[in-house]
């Protein structure tokens, strides 16, 4: 019997990776969105122990290290945030959305990421810019 921290606490408190944000801590806002084996999950509702042997990607690891990921650059270009707290989760979902082939219905497939500043028009514009730069509708 052991205490079982959620993935979000393991990342933030134990590994010092504070890019993933804690907001509601109950799976509502999506600010803690990360990928496990390339699939987006809510880190607050994922037990860290379940990730053993799996690859976890956070906003810190999104870029290949040579600069910003195109989605990060696009969010800046489009001013797709206000306070920025939800932004790491928005970007992790946005990149996944394009990988999943859901670019044509971005409102639905971004619906798990809430932005209290309501930057949605610019968030969607940023996503569409990256989609279009990558060759249009997928």
């Amino acid at each position, binding site marked *: 019997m*052991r205490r*079982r921290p959620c993935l979000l606490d393991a990342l933030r408190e134990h590994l010092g990776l504070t890019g993933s944000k804690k907001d509601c801590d109950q*799976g509502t806002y999506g600010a803690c969105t990360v990928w496990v084996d390339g699939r987006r999950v809510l880190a607050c*509702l994922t*037990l860290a122990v379940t990730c053993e042997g799996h690859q976890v990607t956070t906003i810190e690891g999104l870029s290949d290290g040579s600069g910003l990921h195109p989605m990060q650059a696009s969010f800046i270009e489009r001013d797709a945030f206000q306070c920025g707290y939800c932004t790491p989760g928005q970007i992790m979902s946005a990149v996944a959305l394009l990988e999943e082939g859901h670019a044509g219905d971005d409102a639905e497939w971004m619906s798990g990421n809430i932005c209290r500043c309501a930057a949605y028009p610019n968030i969607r514009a940023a996503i569409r810019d990256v989609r279009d730069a990558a060759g249009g509708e997928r």
Partner: protein
Amino acid sequence: MRPLSYARAADADTAIAMVQARPDSAFLAGGTTEVDLVRQDVLRPGLLVDINDLPLTGVADLPGGGLCQGRPAPP
């Protein structure tokens, strides 16, 4: 969250046997609501049996109507 035991089942039969053997155990599949309720102390499992890695992704029609979810994925 209360301390709890965790196990990853190697196959579906093992998972079923593990959960049947302990009244305070539960399957952990997607887990979003389950983990939320465990963290809020609403559910209090002593053992979670993780079946996420099992190939239970298929859906099958049952003879006589109905659907079976969690059927092993076709090869």
